[in-house]
């Protein structure tokens, strides 16, 4: 038997160390991102305190006038950085996206899992995954070309006509750019995510449990409704939370159809809004013109808030879909 040569051993060690370094790169990048974003938002944290989260006025102040000192930080006169409008816009548009996307995605997943097979199932699954791969700018373009005109001409007047007695659905219909358009565009982007996960979950429901349902005389729909869906409920909630996180972090498509509102909270379903991500993308020029640098710091704090909210949602989702062994018995829980 030949011993392993020394060079081979050294090479093995070097390879292992290099690979280990590469494997730690996500951790390094995450720490770097969090560190930089927190560090850069410290001045605005001092300047605004908690009112950053509760104020609606975002004003860079007089960029060409004198500076004032407040809480030890120098800022332009009249500057105020309140992120509430963007936080509300983010949460509302993502919630609307969920309301639209969840039923559609789950029902589509039921069809994909139980009603089609063979080549057709394969093609349909590919089409759904294709939708996930379309760049957000292209979806935003579709939003401007097709969706926004359709909303302002048909959908919004229709909704106001039918549901107008509910406060949130009444009022000015507007231009079509706004909350509803953002919600629909976001729904387009999260439907494939939820559908793909839900289909995989539904395919894991044991055949025996479903056949048992049929055996006691349930209709095929009742089997889906009372056996398959309860069986995968935890996983579904996780998939939905994942979609929610994705929707909140989405930038370009929302930026293009949201109407870019500032300083005013949305009053109804058709009002223009802005989300944290879209607003950061939109404020590039102002960040560069503010000589005091406060605009850059303020956007940094907005990025920090967005990062915290999306990461919390993602962690919740991971925790809900974590693999669990042997806890589930094959069959209905109740």
């Amino acid at each position, binding site marked *: 038997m030949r011993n392993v040569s020394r060079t*081979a051993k050294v090479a093995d060690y070097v390879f292992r160390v290099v690979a280990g370094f590469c*494997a730690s790169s996500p951790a390094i990048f995450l720490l770097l991102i969090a560190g930089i974003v927190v560090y850069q938002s410290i001045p605005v944290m001092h300047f605004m305190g908690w009112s950053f989260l509760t104020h609606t006025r975002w004003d860079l102040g007089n960029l060409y006038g004198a500076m004032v000192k407040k809480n030890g930080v120098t800022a332009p006169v009249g500057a105020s950085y309140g992120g509430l409008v963007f936080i509300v816009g983010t949460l509302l548009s993502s919630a609307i996206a969920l309301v639209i996307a969840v039923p559609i*995605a789950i029902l589509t997943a039921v069809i994909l899992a139980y009603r089609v097979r063979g080549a057709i199932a394969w093609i349909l699954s590919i089409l759904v995954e294709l939708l996930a791969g379309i760049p957000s700018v292209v979806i935003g373009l*579709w939003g401007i070309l097709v969706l926004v005109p359709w909303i302002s001409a048909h959908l919004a007047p229709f909704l106001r006509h039918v549901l107008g007695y509910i406060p949130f659905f009444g009022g000015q219909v507007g231009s079509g750019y706004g909350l509803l358009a953002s919600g629909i565009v976001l729904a387009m982007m999260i439907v494939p995510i939820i559908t793909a996960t839900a289909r995989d979950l539904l395919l894991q429901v044991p055949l025996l449990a479903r056949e048992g349902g049929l055996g006691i005389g349930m209709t095929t729909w009742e089997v889906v409704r009372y056996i398959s869906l309860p069986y995968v409920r935890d996983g579904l909630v996780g998939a939905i939370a994942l979609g929610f996180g994705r929707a909140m972090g989405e930038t*370009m498509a929302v930026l293009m159809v949201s109407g870019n509102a500032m300083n005013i909270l949305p009053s109804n379903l058709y009002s223009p809004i802005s989300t944290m991500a879209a607003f950061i993308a939109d404020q590039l020029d102002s960040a560069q013109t503010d000589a005091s640098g406060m605009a850059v710091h303020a956007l940094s704090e907005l990025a920090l808030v967005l990062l915290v909210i999306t990461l919390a949602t993602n962690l919740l989702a991971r925790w809900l879909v974590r693999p669990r062994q042997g806890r589930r018995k094959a069959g209905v829980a109740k």
Partner: protein
Amino acid sequence: MKRRRRRNAFSYLGWSIAWLAAALVLFGLFDLLGSIVWRGVRSFHFAMLFTPTQGVAGGLENAILGTFELVLIAVLFAAPLGILGGVYTSEFAGRRTAAVIRFLAEVLSGVPSIVIGYFGYLLLVLQFHWGFSALAGGIALTLIMLPYILRTTDTSLQQVPHMQREAAWALGMTRSQAILKAIWRPAAGGIATGLLLAIAIGLGETAPLLYTAGWNANNPSLQLTHAQVGYLTYVAYTYLDQPYPAARDLAYAAAFVLLVVILIIQLVVRGLVWRTTNRLQGRH
């Protein structure tokens, strides 16, 4: 009997709604593809591929070359990091460490792309004084692509049967020799798929580049820092707002070119996956 009929009726109703939902998804997809392709074909000229942007008109050459430059830089960073990281996760790390690395990669892929772009702006553009540049944009894209590559490498290596490793070790190979000479072969298809999908994702990103790459109406030079670069998604986003038909045509054409390239990559990937699964099942 009556009850039975009612339940059957409910069943029909439920399935009809489900089919409607699936049809709605497909309708949305085809409406999107149709409207973008329709506008794109009408405003696209082949000359656009070879003319740089001039003012609000001209062509897309600078944007196409810029996109390729940015994605190339990103691949140069992300591919080694992601593939070696995936190798470590699958082959060297213990169960605990592997779970932690996978978790962190998932977390990184959950960071909103605009936050990554803004991070690039704060650190690379401002702190390092690189200015809007190809390197800053490429590194921002790296952060987007890295977790995908790491995860696909890891999963495709995990599918290689343990017997193959034992066979290689029994020949007296060290662990790395086993990986470099034997184990990577069955996993290569999966790794290539992941790499291609990551490239498709990188091509379509806008948000990480807004704050890092800038915009340039000239073809990209090979200068890595202090020179802005143009890219396709920027044209699609910005030129749409211009009040000139020529500018809007350029935006439609940019979206069209982007969509075609990404669809081709996606279809190639599906084709690869289709072929390998068929071969493994012995149906080929």
